[in-house]
């Protein structure tokens, strides 16, 4: 069962792989609602055919080691669409897996990626946010949570300290998307996020710097998770 090659080419490969610096990069992918409309197994099979596209399963985790320096980044990808559509979120397999993965993670820092923002959906607010908050209390919380459903770029900081970013305006853009009640930053134009994970120069704490870059190449905003 190989996926529909034409769709893969027009949507993804032809657009990005003509750039020499993007051709060599791997795409660690979360599954979205559009992929759920089609054949989910075909998307997972694409990862087995094309090493550039990484998706081990609808929800999975991967550990990336820094080229120099002794730290690792634990990337956790969720299938939030399935989480919303199941009827028994109480003992959902994926939520148990997420709590377990966060608790047992030995990496220096963790980042969670999901299609939906937990604050944009009442089901996720009820079941996913407590897991993230509990891991924050235990000290194994993620540095940031990236999502992409809304056609906008936004930043929000939860009271417990986790930073929530939306990067969903890489093709389309809408001005009136408000998944967060009080976002700290809303991008005025489409674009993408450029991120750096490293350590603070003085405190040596892990930190994430995120830049909002517009489609015209402007640097809109830089967010530093270590204060300021």
């Amino acid at each position, binding site marked *: 069962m190989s996926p529909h090659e034409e769709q893969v080419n*027009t949507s993804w490969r032809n657009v990005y792989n003509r*750039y020499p*610096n993007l051709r060599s990069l791997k795409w660690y992918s979360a599954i979205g609602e559009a992929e759920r409309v089609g054949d989910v*197994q075909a998307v997972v099979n694409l990862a087995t055919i094309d090493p550039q596209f990484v998706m081990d399963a609808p929800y999975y985790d991967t550990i990336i080691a820094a080229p120099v320096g002794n730290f690792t980044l634990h990337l956790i990808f969720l299938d939030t669409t399935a989480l919303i559509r199941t009827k028994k979120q109480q003992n959902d397999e994926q939520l148990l897996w997420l709590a377990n993965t966060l608790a047992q993670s030995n990496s220096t820092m963790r980042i969670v990626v999901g*299609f939906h923002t937990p604050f944009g959906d009442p089901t996720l607010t009820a079941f996913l946010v407590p897991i993230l908050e509990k891991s924050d209390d235990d000290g194994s919380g993620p540095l940031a949570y990236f999502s992409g459903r809304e056609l906008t770029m936004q930043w929000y900081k939860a009271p417990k300290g986790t930073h929530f970013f939306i990067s969903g305006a890489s093709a389309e853009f809408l001005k009136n998307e408000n998944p967060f009640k009080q976002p700290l930053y809303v991008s005025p134009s489409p674009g993408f996020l450029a991120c750096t994970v490293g350590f603070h120069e003085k405190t040596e704490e892990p930190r994430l*710097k995120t830049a909002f870059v517009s489609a015209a190449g402007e640097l809109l905003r*830089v967010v530093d998770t270590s204060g300021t």
Partner: protein
Amino acid sequence: MLEEDPGRSLRREFAPSLAATSSSRIGTEGGRSVTVFELESGGPDRVEDGYSTVGGGKHVEAGALFQAAPWYERVYRRRCCLCTSFVLLFFFIWYATASNNSCRAKMAAPHASNRPFGTDTVLMHVSDDTKSTPVSNALMGKKTQQELRFIVVGNFGRDGFCFQNDVATEMEKVARSLKTSFIVNTGNAFFPGGLVSLKNNFRNSRDTNHRIR
């Protein structure tokens, strides 16, 4: 000779269903509508364009015509106004939708190519060769080696339409200046219906793949 009220016969003309019992012939003669009533007592009784021509016949006012016309007749006479207002309404709805949608709106980007990716397979090289950009200056710290840098994109699988090509060009610049290691995709890479496996192609293309080519 004239035994019937001309106004009543006119009503029959404009509402023929009511005059089903009458033996009348309706036709045109020289560009005017003519109704011929064949009465039992004598010859044909002619009514032309609202005026009876029978000897000494009564003058029928024009108002009687409009009173007799049913509602759909009146609406039909005003079809021009109706069509115009409908067109204006649809245009307003389209404009209200399009003004909120960046795909149809223009954006001031000098290098922007909003065209979809064509059949050419030539690699596109970004013209300016600067090693450092505002993004790399803001993000790269002093200990550049001990950093992992990446790009986060989402909702991009639009076949190069909307801002996908513009964003890809900027991603290339950032990837070169930042020396990014990987890309994180937050979902919706294949619009609008995801991927379809070749094995179940027929069933899936009918049920789930709403793509129009």
